[in-house]
């Protein structure tokens, strides 16, 4: 469904993403991991149209979307969430989600019902009247998710949805994400929380210093010496084996 082919993005002299490739098949949950500063969010931004890539191609459902504006990519069916949450602070949770729902309808009553339904899916029904600014971290993460869901996407790009959540909240969100996949939406997620990655993702890509260094099942890449070195430092793989 999503094909990223040798995408590169530099800022100034720094190559943030270096010829990274990945693909996501319909119905999958794919993870993107890597140590801090590896370039994961930059890769997302380049895929989702927020930063035009310097080189490489992005194709979605067969259509070339490289460098398209974010709202056009949303129209194609791909939506992203933000690592640093961006709630619409001065309006209610319901109104926040409605903005997403308005993507495929102009009717305010319909958008309202959609918003309430989506809120139910992510477990925010009790918070519908709260102001965006008044939510806790967990609430904001859910709101990001709900808003993106409300647009009716085919592929969801989730950027560190788990960050800042406690173990209970993580378990809840993991279930929500599973439910989302069950409803027919494909998911690509950036994550640091390994528990979430291993329990959700069927395949995982590993990014380090802008380069894709491994991909495979969570179990396989956990054994991959290059991955171990990326996280624990040079020579760690040897140490681990000894």
């Amino acid at each position: 469904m999503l094909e990223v082919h040798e995408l590169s993005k530099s800022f100034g002299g720094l190559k943030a993403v270096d010829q990274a490739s990945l693909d996501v098949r319909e119905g999958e949950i794919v993870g993107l991991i890597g140590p801090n500063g590896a370039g994961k969010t930059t890769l997302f931004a380049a895929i989702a149209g927020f930063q035009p890539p310097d080189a490489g191609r992005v194709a979605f459902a067969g259509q070339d979307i490289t460098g398209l504006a974010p709202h056009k990519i949303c129209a194609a069916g791909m939506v992203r969430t933000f690592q640093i949450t961006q709630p619409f602070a001065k309006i209610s949770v319901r109104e926040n989600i409605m903005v997403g729902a308005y993507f495929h309808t102009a009717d305010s009553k319909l958008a309202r019902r959609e918003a309430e339904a989506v809120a139910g899916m992510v477990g925010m029904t009790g918070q519908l009247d709260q102001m965006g600014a008044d939510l806790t971290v967990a609430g904001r993460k859910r709101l990001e998710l709900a808003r993106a869901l409300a647009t009716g996407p085919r592929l969801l790009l989730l950027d560190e949805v788990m960050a800042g959540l406690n173990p209970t909240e993580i378990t809840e969100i993991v279930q929500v994400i599973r439910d989302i996949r069950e409803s027919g939406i494909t998911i690509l997620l950036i994550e640091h929380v390994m528990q979430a990655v291993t329990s959700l993702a069927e395949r995982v890509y590993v990014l380090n210093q802008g380069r894709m260094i491994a991909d495979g099942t969570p179990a396989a890449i956990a054994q991959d010496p290059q991955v171990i070195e990326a996280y624990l430092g040079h020579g760690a793989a040897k140490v681990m084996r000894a």
Partner: protein
Amino acid sequence: MSRQAALCLVGLAAAVMFPLVAPNYLVNVGMMVLFVAFIGQSWNIAGGFAGQTSFGHVVFFGTGAYTSTILQVTYGWNPWLAWPAAMLAGAIVGWVIAVLSFRAGLRGSYFALITLAFAEVFRILANSVPFTRGGLGMLIKADPRPINFQFRDPIWFYYLALLLCVVSILIAWQVTRSRFGARLVAIRENEDAARALGIDVFAEKVKVLTLSGAMCAAGGTFYAQKYLYIDPNIAFGVDKSVEMLLVSMVGGAGTIFGPLIGSVTLTVINEVTRAVASVVPALKNVQPLSLVVYGIMLVLIVARLPDGLIGLFRRKPRHA
């Protein structure tokens, strides 16, 4: 009927009754309150709802005023026909400024400043170009018959201003209930998030400024017809820009009734300072004193009461 709707109806009835019992002086004051609320709403839709703060909104006002006046005086158009033409001119200017500014990615303070510059350009042009009669200004021949968009009795200008104000409130109300309005608010709150949710931010911003321009231009024509004289400073001077911005912010930017509340408040302040000044013989000119108070209010509102006076009335300040 909900409490809000009942309140509105009562208010409307009072506004309709008012000029029938009030002296002419107060009728004119009332007309001004409603008129400023109207043009304030035009600013509010772009600045309050969509968050595009403009410092040069008077550019639309002046465009409207000059368009209808020139069509009338130089080309003999009937002013009622010149009115929609003025609105169209305002819409076009709004569209042009929006496309130029937003294509260049201008936001926040930069956008505010460029609108100021546009207003200044128009003012200088109006001052120097022959078809606006330059600094002399333009006089509309007094012939107070309804067909000429002139009325002998100020009560009719009052009712027209009331109509405009009500229409602007309805427009704002409709915006808040529509997808367009929700998108504008999203853009105001967080442009990037709005983009990610499929909103064509550029297109929506252009739309709102075009609408705002048309509305404000309508106000320009009204003003010209009431006072029968415009010149570059009246039409494009900074004072009107400030007034539109102020009434919206004081009343509550991004709310339906904000500009009206702001307009009433500012007028009350104006009348009070006028009364105070009449007691102090040294103060000949009252206008600056009112403006000093306005300036202080702007600082206090932005710093302490960003939701405007409406924020005082709501338990949880709700925006559009």
